[in-house]
């Protein structure tokens, strides 16, 4: 009897050690506490209960597709929900593992730094992923924000005006430095680029 009990005790102990090590690495790399990470895991699990295992020991390789994640109530009404999820996924298609899921909400939380938020905001608005916000990116952003109720001339005017105002180095598109310069002059950015979970 004893011989059979001991291995299970050891494996349970190893499990708890590895769970707490995983939690510690998550807590070190993101802005969440253990309780919040557990809660996030619960939310991740309820998005696809048959795909995501309930326990957290084996660090499974499952990734949830974009369509499931953008249906979360926090993201459902956001005009940029697809771009947000795509920017945090490793393959660029929006399939998030649990670690990337936590990472996404960590950057969008209250305590993330302004620089980190600026980097990811730039990624979100950069629709064609060329590291510049060109006119097409701005037009797409504007259309998402106004439900396409502006006339094409007005859209053109607004985008032109935005580029004129924010472009410092004169290449007719906004690089990350231009974007960051604009962010530093907008103190509200920290509180508006924020999703509560």
């Amino acid at each position: 009897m004893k011989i059979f009990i001991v291995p299970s005790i050891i494996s349970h102990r190893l499990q708890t050690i590895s769970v707490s090590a995983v939690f510690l690495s998550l807590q070190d790399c993101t802005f969440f506490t253990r309780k919040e990470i557990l809660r996030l895991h619960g939310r991740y699990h309820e998005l696809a209960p048959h795909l995501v295992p309930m326990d957290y020991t084996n660090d499974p390789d499952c990734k949830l597709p974009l369509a499931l994640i953008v249906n979360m109530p926090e993201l459902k009404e956001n005009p940029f929900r697809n771009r947000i999820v795509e920017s945090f996924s490793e393959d660029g298609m929006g399939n998030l593992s649990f670690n990337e899921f936590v990472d996404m909400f960590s950057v969008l939380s209250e305590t993330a730094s302004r620089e980190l938020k600026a980097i990811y905001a730039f990624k979100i608005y950069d629709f064609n992923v060329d590291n510049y916000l060109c006119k097409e990116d701005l037009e797409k952003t504007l259309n998402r924000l106004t439900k396409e109720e502006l006339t094409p001339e007005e859209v053109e005017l607004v985008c032109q005006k935005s580029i004129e105002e924010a472009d410092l180095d004169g290449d007719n598109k906004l690089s990350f430095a231009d974007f960051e310069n604009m962010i530093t002059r907008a103190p509200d950015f920290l509180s508006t680029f924020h999703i509560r979970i």
Partner: protein
Amino acid sequence: VKEFVALSTRDRIRAIRDLAMSFEEKKHIRWVLTDKQLNLYCYTCNKLHSQSLRRCGYSIRSARQTLELWQGIMKEIGGKFGTSVLSYFLFLKWLLMFNIFSFLINFGFITIPLLVYDPSPNIPPNVSFRGLEILTGAGYFNYTVMYYGGYSNETLIGLVDYNMQLAYFFTIAVYMVLCGIALIFSMASSFKENYVLADTVSNSAWQLLCSWDFSITNERAVRQRKNNLRVQLKESLSERAQRELLTLSEKLKHFGVHLGSWLLSTGLAVGCGASIYYLYAANWSLLQEAETLLVPFVVSLMNLVVPLFYSLFNKFEHYSSLGRQIYALVVRNVLLKMSILAVLCYYWMNVVAEKFSCWESMVGQALYRLVIVDFLFLMLGSFFGEFLSNVIGTRLLPRLGVPEFDVARNVLELIYAQTLAWIGIYFSPLLPAIQILKFFILFYLKKVSLTQNCQPPRRTGRAAQMQTIFIALLFFPFFVGALSIVAYTAWRLTPSEQCGPFRGLNNTFSVVGVWIDDLQEIPASQWVVWIYQNVIRSEIFYFLITLIIIVIIYIFWQVTQGRKQLIGQLRQQIVNVSVLHP
């Protein structure tokens, strides 16, 4: 990665969190730095030590989170109304923490020792509890530990010798100092983040890229925001087309209107103050129970009605930007409240302190009445301001529309209520308990009123700047005013002879002098006596400190000027480089 090696563990963690890489890369870097690196040192002890420290820190953070109030409600409000309306509720929660802290230390250090020593209050035989005391605060409450007069001046003999005088003085002094420090730190960090480099012009690029509030999750609210943004963009486009220059006569007209409305608002504020003074002077002789409620009633009525007048001025005045309009409204409201408070305090310090035997309890009762009536009027104001506006806007005059939640007016009401509590701590140590109850109920009331009656704000932006201004207003003039009133009372006014912990002394500060004299007998605490005589009582010390602080401020100011110039030069360099290398 190489720079990370040189940092301490805490800075390293912070730097790793700030990296904009995928999670797997961050984990790899973390593993490289912590696990591989520490092979050089004592592997087991160092790693386990730092890990267990971090785990301990995290569990403390988790535990603190379980005590967080109202998380769910905040999320719901933020999701439907946006960050600027949410800032009101966050401010309310922050002020509630001040009051909870105050209540805990007052109750713990002042009231509990007295209750343990002497559990039954010595009430004269013909006074009993009637219901009216809850409103007026007089009568039965006058003889309990609610007010200054209920505290004794003896040294309570028990397990330890507890000196009530020193306890009362130091508890209140320490609380005010800690409050001041907390406010200064919040104000400074808020200025640094939100105010320093803010661009006051709201332009297209900002509207397009920075203004969308990601925390809104309600479908109707999102639709409304999109509409508002579209309207604002169309407005700014059409303004660009016809940028009008005002003629001289129009400028003069605007100036005249501004001058007139400022004179009128200042006159209203001064008039309110004067009328309260005469009302008080005429009425104080009649101390019938219910009539003492007249002055608080008039004060709260003025606080409710006159700001609505000020909002009416907006219809006639023409401001160049929305920000200036809000600033003007805030300044006028602050003037009104400061004048009312100044008149009340002047009356209490000069007339009441001379006339009555147990005058601190009288002042405490007056403050209690003000707090209670102010609460009743806040509830009424919510009803009239929001519910009736909603009814009028939807049924009677659809042109007006559903009202918006007026953040500025509501925050100023909160600041005023908190100032009353801060003034009242010296005269009525348990007033924070009433304030806690008041804020608690107010939170739920405002939340219900908001969700039923109001729509999300139409114009967004500058929420962070308004937040900074409100914290700055809370500190100066309201907290500083309350602190100076309490300091003046403790320094200049003679405590009453028959009641309270400071009876028989010339002024409250002499408690410290008496204590230092007692300490001189004990050889072990000579250093305290030395500090008191050579540091606190000597003028040369304060003079030197002031001089050093002025020099440091001047140096920092010059550094700031230099940095501003540098920023301008760097911006010019970027433009020049792009011209040279297109």
